[in-house]
């Protein structure tokens, strides 16, 4: 038995930061508010109350879909997902089933691998249960402030094959939804919740075997998601070695993650999707989203990090620098404002903080480039100085420990007060080291 290959899909829930809730006028910002102070007949699910959809939330969902390269359904509708839980006021959650607003998108990882996105849909959040002790009695209280807050669910295909990829995917989603300003996506406030579904493909002489699926619920940190996935991969592999049990309809389980004990624990048996008795929400007419609305939303989207990075790289910026600069609006402006300078070099200077972007860029740039290009004699002296001062290191290098080169380069850079071009320094060093052999 070898090659356990993890198969990971991710469901990400994002609370939208709209002014009002999904289907009523109550404020959507519920964090830290006194229990049940932001409720009305609609979000309490009182008899006779009807949901009226929040236009902004729908537009925000489409925004997310577009940012994740999704297609937008021209006709969409809400569905009822029926199940009983004390925090679910109506006995059903208004969600989307067969016609979500967005479908078939993707996120590209740095490796170039595409993680396909199955769907992006809009639903309402539930209330919150508080299990506590009142007057010596164990009680469960319900706070409906969160009930009806717009919640977007982003569902990926099971294209992810390691916890590291999962983390990168999650961080990209996080960055994107924040960038387009539809949510503050504060994980500690539960505004972004992560639910990986994991199983493992194990190949032996008889062929490939797929272990049962595990859904990991409500994880609120990227690191915990990584740890939980890794824990599950090894647990599922061990479990399969013991039982030989394979995935089949009905044996999907749900587990939680205990961040203190660093392990996952079983929650409930996952109900089959169709036991939710989904059917079209009769209280809300189907929605038609015209192409022009979609295009308007698309036009208003800010440039996304992936696109910025790609543009920078094609302008000659090193990928590592591009990634850092993509988050630095001021630096990006400077780069754009100086088309005459070598973008790659300027970017590198900015990243290595050799230039102060608040003062004259041209002046600093020419100074930096001049030193690197012309003053080879001076540099040569610095190199000699460093080699003489560090005979032990030179010896180590000669014994084959080539990693010390970085240290030597650093020393030369120090002497040049950071003005030297590391490439030139490196080649000078190599020349002299091989010459003195």
């Amino acid at each position, binding site marked *: 038995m070898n090659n356990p290959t993890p198969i990971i899909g991710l469901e990400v829930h994002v609370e939208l930061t709209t002014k009002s809730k999904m289907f009523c006028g109550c404020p959507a910002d519920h964090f830290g508010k006194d229990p049940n102070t932001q409720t009305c*007949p*609609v979000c309490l*699910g*009182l*008899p*006779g*109350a*009807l*949901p*009226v*959809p929040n236009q902004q939330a729908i537009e925000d969902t489409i925004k997310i879909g577009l940012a994740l390269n999704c297609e937008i359904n021209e006709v969409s509708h809400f569905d*009822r997902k*029926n199940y*009983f839980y*004390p925090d679910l*006021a*109506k*006995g*059903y959650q208004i969600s989307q089933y067969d016609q979500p607003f967005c479908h078939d998108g993707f996120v590209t990882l740095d490796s170039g691998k595409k993680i396909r996105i199955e769907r992006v849909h809009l639903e309402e959040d539930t209330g919150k249960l508080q299990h506590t002790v009142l007057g010596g009695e164990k009680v469960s209280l319900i706070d409906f402030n969160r009930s009806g807050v717009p919640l977007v669910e982003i569902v990926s295909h099971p294209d992810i094959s390691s916890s590291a990829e999962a983390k990168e995917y999650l961080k990209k989603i996080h960055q994107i939804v924040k960038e387009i300003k539809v949510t503050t996506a504060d994980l500690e406030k539960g505004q972004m919740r992560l639910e990986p579904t994991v199983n493992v493909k194990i190949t032996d002489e008889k062929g490939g075997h797929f272990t049962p699926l595990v859904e990991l619920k409500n994880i609120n940190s990227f690191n915990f998601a990584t740890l939980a996935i890794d824990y599950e991969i090894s647990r599922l592999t061990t479990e399969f070695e013991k039982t030989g049990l394979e995935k089949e309809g009905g044996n999907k389980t749900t587990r939680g993650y205990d961040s203190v004990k660093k392990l996952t624990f079983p929650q409930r048996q996952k109900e*089959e999707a*169709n*036991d939710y*008795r*989904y*059917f079209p929400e*009769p*209280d*809300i*007419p189907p929605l038609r989203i015209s192409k022009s609305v979609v295009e308007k939303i698309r036009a208003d989207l800010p440039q996304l990090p992936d696109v910025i990075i790609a543009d920078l790289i094609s302008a000659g910026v090193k990928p590592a620098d591009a990634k850092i600069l993509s988050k630095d609006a001021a630096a990006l402006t400077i780069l754009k404002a100086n088309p005459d300078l070598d973008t790659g070099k300027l970017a590198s200077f900015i990243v290595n903080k050799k230039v102060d972007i608040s003062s004259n860029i041209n002046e600093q740039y020419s100074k930096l480039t001049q030193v690197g290009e012309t003053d080879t004699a001076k540099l040569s002296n610095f190199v000699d100085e460093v080699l003489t001062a560090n005979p032990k290191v030179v010896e180590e290098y000669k014994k084959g420990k080539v990693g010390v080169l970085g240290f030597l380069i650093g020393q030369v850079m120090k002497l040049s007060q950071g003005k030297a071009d590391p490439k030139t320094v490196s080649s000078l060093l190599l020349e002299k080291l091989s010459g003195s052999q």
Partner: protein
Amino acid sequence: MNKQIHELSVVELLHGLEDKLFSVTDIVHHYLDRIARYNPELNIYLHVNEKAIDQAKAIDAEIKKDGLTKPLQGIPFAVKDNFLTVGLPTTASSKVLEDYYPQYESTVTKRLLAAGAIILGKTNMDAWAHGSSTETSQFGPTLNPWDLGRLPGGSSGGSAAAVAAQLAPVAIGSETAGSIRQPAAWCGVTGFKGSYGRVSRYGVIAMASSTDSPGPIAQNITDAALVTSVIAGQDQYDGTSSPKEVEQYHKLLNRKDLKGMKIGLVKGYLLPTMRTEVKTLIQNAAKKLESLGATVEEISLMDPKYAIGVYTVIQRSEVSSNLARFDGIRYGHGRENFGEEAKRRIMLGTYTLSAGYYDAYYKKAMAVRTKIVEEFENAFKTYDAIIGAVSPGPALKLGATKNEPMFGEMEDILVEPSSIAGLTSAGVPCGFVDDLPIGLQITGNQFEETKIMNIAKVYQDATDFVKFPEKYQK
């Protein structure tokens, strides 16, 4: 004026108030006295508004100061107990909601109150509006004022009986499939159902969300038109309410005849099982309409039995979901309080939505629903209205629903197609069989309320079928 207050229509009451023949307090007193006298035997009202007199006095003061300024100023009305009313219990005739006092007002009652009307009380109904008899009420059946051994129909049985027994000049009901027109027919009064989306459902305890339509039950179509013009119109709290502008229907009832109107008499609605006398009354009505200038032709529509199938599946499915919120956690009474009929519907609806059955039942029903809608759309390309009986026969005897789980559907077979298509329809008295009233339905295309009201008005003006049971005229 020789008539007593309870014999006056809403329009006549407004004229009387204008002419200062009586005060609002006089009207409300008169009705409260009658309710005290007759309600114990009829079981129409579940709750009577104890503040009605105070409210009447306040409106008298308003009128004294500024005159009549609102469309229904000083008019008392009865309202079905599935409309949420602040300060009055709202139970939908189910023990699950016994003593439930709502936190907010339904849009319909809110609009009526804003128009100056006064709630007399809340009327009995089939529990959760499940039925066509008012016999499934968990607070006892309402009796038909024409014959105390008979059912008033339902689910708005209390509201229809209230108008028939003249315990309210007008009442509000709600129709999911026949629940206004059928009890109105059995009680010999006029019921009006607006198109789906014409009147807001906000604050009406949901039965089948995709067909629920509130509407008035009145002495005549003019009163029904007046009340509809007040309660209709878009509501920001109901996403399915139509933005179409509301007409002042009662002011547009100016047709003197039906010249140029083309009316279809649905052949298939004259059921083989129907009593000959009922068929004759419907054919007489057709002749009457013809004599008033309309062209009446027999038309064929899909066998109404298919509408029953469609309606049963969709309605049970929606019911099973709509009643889920009464899970025993919040409203003070546990799920064991659901009656037989509600339990039956919840189970059937849960089944039709379940894995593996959804396609065979719900999805198929929705597909046939589309067919029915298309068929009506086609018919209305040629016809201004279509007519037929409201119900296969007159009011049935108490106990008729026993062991008949499909009772409502069989009694509503002729009104279910128009309901699932969201059409507008009037139910008006068209004669008597065995001294029991029979109702004629005049059904029109979506949002053609004015046209249908006009046909009903011309018919009502030319006939003399609006009668009230003698016993309660004293």
